[in-house]
């Protein structure tokens, strides 16, 4: 095993291949920037987005989810933007633009075709719940960070692929976390790759840092968004939502709850609310069937 457990610098190839990763839609970044501009209007935001038909379709599908609580079915982009709050628009834009990336099967992580989408949406909803419970000032940022926290897996999947057994063997034999075993075998992990992708996609540094830290107990207690994202991911795994081979093979920092000033009862409350939010968002999860590569009878199975 020792001959296989040395870093083989695959990570170099991973970073080279990052240039081949599709970019995050520029129109969405422009729309998000406009939302920050107090002088901008919703018709201006709609004007930017409406020339991308698949994006518009995704926005309308997600907007009509029960999660966003609109009283009637919306069929036009301008109406949707007029009825939603700023934070909701941000969440919908990011989720809509991310759908093509998050609806992929990840055999390397033993994840079924719908698992990444379910896990990403589950973590995003949980992050929003925890952020609101904690009084965090930007729940939409927490939602977005959680939505994209495993984006590195779609790149790492190519490299983990046939070596999953080797990674698990190293993890078991040496009692390592999955991330430690990934480093040992591949010389990198999906959190680092995710950080690099989000940096290239020009998301705020605070967000890419949180994604970088989400499996590192020493790092994620350093700032609130990182701690919030780490906790949301943990709760989503505990709820069994889109769990891969790496699922429980991590350590939880004994300082995480203290960092977020949460008690055991607080955690249980967040868990209950997250489960309710997840059930309510069943129609967003069902979008996997509408837009994904199919083959799953019950994508909202959890």
């Amino acid at each position, binding site marked *: 095993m020792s001959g296989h457990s040395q870093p083989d610098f695959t990570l170099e190839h991973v970073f080279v291949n990052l240039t081949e990763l599709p970019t995050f839609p520029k129109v969405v970044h422009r729309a998000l920037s406009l939302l920050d501009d107090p002088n901008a209007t919703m018709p201006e935001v709609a004007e930017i987005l409406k020339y991308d038909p698949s994006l518009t379709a995704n926005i309308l599908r997600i907007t009509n989810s029960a999660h966003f609580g609109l009283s009637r079915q919306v069929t036009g982009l301008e109406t949707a933007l007029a009825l939603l709050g700023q934070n909701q628009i941000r969440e919908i834009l990011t989720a809509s633009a991310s759908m093509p990336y998050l609806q992929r099967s990840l055999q390397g992580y033993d994840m079924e075709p719908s698992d990444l989408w379910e896990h990403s949406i589950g973590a995003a909803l949980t992050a929003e719940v925890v952020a609101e419970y904690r009084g965090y000032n930007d729940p939409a940022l927490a939602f977005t960070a959680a939505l994209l926290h495993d984006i590195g897996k779609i790149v790492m999947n190519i490299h983990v692929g046939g070596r999953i057994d080797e990674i698990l063997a190293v993890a078991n034999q040496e009692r390592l976390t999955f991330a430690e075993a990934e480093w040992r075998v591949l010389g990198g992990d999906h959190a680092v790759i995710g950080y690099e992708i989000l940096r290239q996609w020009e998301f705020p540094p605070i967000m890419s840092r949180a994604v970088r830290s989400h499996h590192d107990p020493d790092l994620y207690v350093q700032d609130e968004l990182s701690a919030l994202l780490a906790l949301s991911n943990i709760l989503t795994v505990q*709820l069994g939502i889109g769990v891969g081979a790496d699922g*429980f*093979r*991590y*350590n*939880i920092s004994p300082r995480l*709850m203290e960092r977020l000033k949460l008690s055991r009862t607080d955690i*249980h*409350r967040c868990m209950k609310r997250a489960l309710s939010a997840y059930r309510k968002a069943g129609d967003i999860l069902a979008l996997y069937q509408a837009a994904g590569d199919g083959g799953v009878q019950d994508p909202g199975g959890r």
Partner: protein
Amino acid sequence: MKRLLVKAGECAVSTDPDVILEAKSLGSTLGVCVQDLSRGVAGMAVVVLPRIPPKEDGTDGFRALDAVSGLQNLFLDCLAAGAQREKLDVWLVGAAQFMEEPKDMALGVQVYAAARKVLEKNKIKVRGEHVGGQVNRSVELAVSRGGLKVRLGGQKEVNL
């Protein structure tokens, strides 16, 4: 065969011999499986929390959100469907743990202990279990067959 999916926080009971009760990807939640083979009754609950958190209004319609209400609903539904208490077989599956986790975040340990306490209080024996560790499990219980099938991480299968 028809599959009846039992989601987190839910419970289901069936007397249809063509039904397989199934809970996918349990994570740290606890699958409680119950069967009276002689009466053709099977039930399953996926319990999420040890108890309902104080000052939290209700269960949001979840019938197995916590160990106390979840087990109560499951057993009452089984008895109402014709099962006999003394002939019920009970299995526990799930309650996965992270490698190192603070006690207050060890949901699998908490929910398992709470369920065991309820069962012991009611003098109900557990026939078998597959719980704990860093394993995500799915479970199947066929109404017409004895025993259940546990899938580990989507790969290996174990029969209990």
